């Protein structure tokens, strides 16, 4: 028999439909003979009614909301790198010239191997962006893969140096580069070179994960980013294997417009065939 106190404790989950069937039956039994609990249950349901009738917002447009939000979003380091797309020609020339001067001056100080904890690291990123912007479209994929590899080298170095946040930042930058190169990776100009580059990236990802795993305080964030990056490489390599054209030489290289019918060999009877024949009979 359910006590009055227990029944009162269960009235709210009962009204919310959160009790198991046997518990509900016990409450039902108690409610049959307890006017106080019956009255309290009505109050609980009235309160629930008030809570669920709080209305949703009327339809609103997300576009002006985003514009207002975008105006106050802080700029992260990756975004301070200028994006040259859309610049007018004069602006582009001026920006390129300015950055080239800055980059040239900074190159003397900033080694191409500067790591993310180096104050001159942003200069290195600017140089990379200039390099990518000036690279002909056909060669962009090669540069992007080199830059992706460089991000992984940095991630490994930062993980080794117990700077997990910088390692994660480099891994995220790697992801962005690979995402940006995804379209080109579907149809690489030099499939074998690209394949080798993807293998090299995979080896570097393994190295980052090994460094992270060997630390006493290995970082889950690095592990997750590496796992996601490896999944993405798997996906890209699968795409590549599906879409890569087969290398054909000789007669097969130029197939006839209407292929000749290939005579099929007469199938030999097998035990299975015999059995099917017998079953048909």
């Amino acid at each position: 028999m359910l006590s009055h106190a227990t029944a009162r404790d269960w009235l709210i989950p009962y009204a919310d439909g959160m009790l198991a069937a046997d518990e509900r039956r016990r409450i039902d039994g108690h409610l049959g003979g307890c006017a106080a609990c019956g009255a309290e249950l009505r109050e609980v349901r009235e309160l629930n009614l008030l809570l669920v009738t709080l209305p949703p917002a009327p339809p609103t447009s997300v576009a002006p909301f985003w514009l207002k939000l975008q105006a106050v979003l802080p700029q992260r380091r990756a975004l301070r790198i200028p994006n040259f797309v859309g610049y007018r020609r004069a602006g582009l020339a001026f920006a390129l010239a300015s950055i080239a001067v800055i980059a040239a001056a900074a190159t003397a100080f900033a080694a191409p191997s500067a790591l993310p904890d180096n104050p001159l690291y942003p200069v290195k990123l600017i140089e990379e962006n200039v390099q990518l912007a000036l690279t002909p479209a056909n060669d962009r994929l090669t540069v992007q893969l080199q830059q992706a590899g460089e991000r992984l080298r940095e991630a490994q170095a930062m993980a080794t140096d117990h700077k997990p946040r910088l390692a994660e930042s480099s891994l995220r930058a790697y992801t962005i580069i690979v995402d940006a190169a995804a379209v080109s990776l579907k149809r690489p100009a030099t499939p074998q070179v690209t394949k080798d580059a993807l293998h090299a990236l995979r080896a570097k990802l393994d190295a980052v994960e090994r460094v992270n795993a060997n630390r006493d305080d290995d970082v889950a964030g690095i592990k997750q980013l590496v796992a996601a990056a490896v999944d993405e490489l798997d996906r890209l390599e699968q795409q590549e294997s599906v879409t890569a054209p087969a290398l054909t030489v000789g007669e097969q290289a130029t197939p006839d417009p209407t292929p000749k019918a290939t005579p099929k060999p007469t199938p030999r009877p097998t035990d299975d065939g015999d059995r099917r024949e017998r079953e048909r009979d």
Partner: protein
Amino acid sequence: MARAQDAPSIEGDAEERRLIDRSAAGDQEAFRQLVIRHHRLVINVAFRALGELSLAEDVAQEVFLKVYKALPGYRHEKPFKHWLHRVAANAVTDALRRRRPIVSLDGMEQPPASRESDPLDVATRHDLQKAVRQAIASLPSHYRDTIALQAFGELSYEEIAKTLDIPLGTVMSRLSGAKRLLRERLGDLVHGEEANTA
């Protein structure tokens, strides 16, 4: 009363994860996609809590700004939507407390006597909703945060447990405690009514 959200597909999860990682790295276009996906959820939570669209949009802006700033520390250990609900619930309850009138709820305008004959009366309903919001704002924080997820976020007990990282039993006891206090503080508003829903 709570409605379970549809589980996102694995592909949807992967796409969302990619958007989150890119946003964390500073890609505002990726963050725009995230905002488009979750804008309605946050606006609804804020509007249910505050009852005014302009205020709800201001709080939603706060929520997404906090999310953007905190994204580099997000570790995918819990679904993004749960985390977003938690940030939104905190922001709206803070906003509610900021707006809470100094006067006691006892002095709040009571609904007119004709309420029972016309329960859908718009003005009366508006008063009731305002009273409920103010009563929620007056709760102790652990009750307030839990019931905000149910009343404003429309989360189920299980979703609240996952969002707050607390056991289901704790959700039950907190919601029970919160609703007892709400009944006390709302006084006659929930007394003597014939409820029609479970």
